[in-house]
């Protein structure tokens, strides 16, 4: 049993899902030997103990007064609205707030040369910029250009963000992190005006430090949904870009249910998908053609690519996730 499976079982058990005897035994053994899963188990209990927000009393009173005025329940009225499909309209990224300029000032320091793969982000802002100024847009455009200009092919590079001596044995391992179930890879340090960034959450990773995973604040540019920035323990910023393949001109991002708690970890299939036992994807998948680089893709039996596609291990070095030892799962992004 690995950590992702253990944590998933713990979460499901918390919701009253039954766990069979063998799984329960494996769970107990794993937690006893694994500090991370033991901490997750404690975290679950702590999370459950946090009380939910109270509804303001005057809100309750106003709602009841409105309903009282509405009169008695009407019999046999048509059922409410049907299920609203999809989440495309759900607000996901907060409106960039004005707080950055009043909380911190990070000054730009100049162009930065990056990475063995010669990926370059060179965003230089000589002055603090504000919300929607031309300078900010120019900076964001420069970032986008540099990210989109980064090689989309070849084994993912592993630029050091911590400054640790590269380990040649893991030189081909990806510099992946996971954020909200999606995979991003490092493209090196970033020198970006703080005013162009919005905090969007936390990524738990040890990066390439070799130490324990810690929570790092994740930030985004309002103009580039494929890019992610982490506030590094050193105080500097690290730039990441979504691991993407295209299919029929549509972008699909690599996903993970694992935390990817350090560089070098590979994502596998989501926990709900059984790894195929045959090269043709059966019994889980069926072949669904090739992506735009000619790599075969697979879909779940009965699904279409709009629900996500799988890619078999053993792709060529030109693949965006080349070297992955397992089946991978990719979902379309807007």
């Amino acid at each position, binding site marked *: 049993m690995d950590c992702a499976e253990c944590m998933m079982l713990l979460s499901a058990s918390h919701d009253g899902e039954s766990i069979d005897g063998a799984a329960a035994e494996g769970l107990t053994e794993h937690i006893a030997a694994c500090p991370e899963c033991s901490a997750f188990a404690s975290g679950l209990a702590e999370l459950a103990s946090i009380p*939910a927000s109270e509804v303001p009393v005057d809100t309750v009173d106003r709602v009841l007064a409105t309903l*009282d005025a509405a009169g008695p329940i009407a019999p046999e009225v048509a059922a409410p609205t049907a299920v609203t499909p999809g989440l495309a309209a759900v607000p996901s990224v907060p409106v*960039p707030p004005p707080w950055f300029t009043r909380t911190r000032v990070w000054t730009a320091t100049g162009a930065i040369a990056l990475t063995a793969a010669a990926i370059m982000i060179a965003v230089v802002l000589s002055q603090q910029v504000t919300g929607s100024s031309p300078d900010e847009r120019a900076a964001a455009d420069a970032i986008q250009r540099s990210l989109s200009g980064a090689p989309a092919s070849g084994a993912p590079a592993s630029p050091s963000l911590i400054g640790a001596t590269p380990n040649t044995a893991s030189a081909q391992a990806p510099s992946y992190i996971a954020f909200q179930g999606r995979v991003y890879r490092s493209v090196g340090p970033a020198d970006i005006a703080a005013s162009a960034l919005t905090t969007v*959450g936390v990524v738990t990773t040890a990066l390439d430090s070799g130490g324990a995973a810690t929570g*790092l604040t994740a930030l985004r540019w309002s103009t580039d949904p494929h890019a992610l920035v982490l506030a590094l323990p050193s105080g500097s910023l690290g730039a990441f870009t979504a691991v993407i393949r295209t299919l029929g001109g549509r972008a699909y991002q690599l996903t993970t249910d694992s935390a990817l708690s350090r560089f070098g970890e590979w994502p596998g299939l989501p926990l709900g998908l059984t790894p195929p036992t045959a090269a043709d994807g059966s019994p889980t998948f069926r072949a669904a053609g090739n992506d735009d680089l000619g790599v075969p893709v697979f879909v779940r039996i009965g699904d279409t690519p709009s629900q996500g596609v799988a890619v078999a291990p053993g792709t060529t070095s030109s693949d965006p996730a080349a070297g992955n030892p397992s089946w991978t799962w990719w979902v379309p992004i807007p």
Partner: protein
Amino acid sequence: MTTSTAEDAELVAAARDGDTRAFETLVRNHIGAVYGHAIRFFVDAGTAEDAVQEVFLKVHRSLGGFDGRSAFSTWLYRITRNVCLDMFRRGRRRAAPMDPLDLPHIPSGEFADAVATSVDLERAVAFLAPEDRDAFNAIALFGLSYADAGEVLGIPAGTVKSRVFRARRGLIATLGLGQKEAS
């Protein structure tokens, strides 16, 4: 407040028979879940209250046609989610969640000794992916099963399980929970 399906069914039956006190009890029992979903969706308390009003007006208008094939909480979650989505489509926008300096931060020695509050939790939930937040709300606020949540969300129960797990993992990391034993 979590109530049993049987208790809800009795209250629904009584409310449909004109018992206004039963309907008020039904509202009081479930308004926390509806408000919780709305405040996590819109962040702004005023907009959340508008959503709560609209949800219970829909319930009031539709309860006579509620066929009881699903649990009341499942039906209510469906209405709540749809009302929030419809309000968003009509132009009600989500407020910026918070100042990052107020983030209930990240595992650290000091925070590990602190106690996370409901305010911290709501702030952390605001940063979840929308699909993870929806699944988490269905389970944690409305007490739905994975299967019932999956039916409302139009996804398999296994996907609900995965999303709830991802939400919890994110919240635990953001709030720095579980660190006392680990450190």
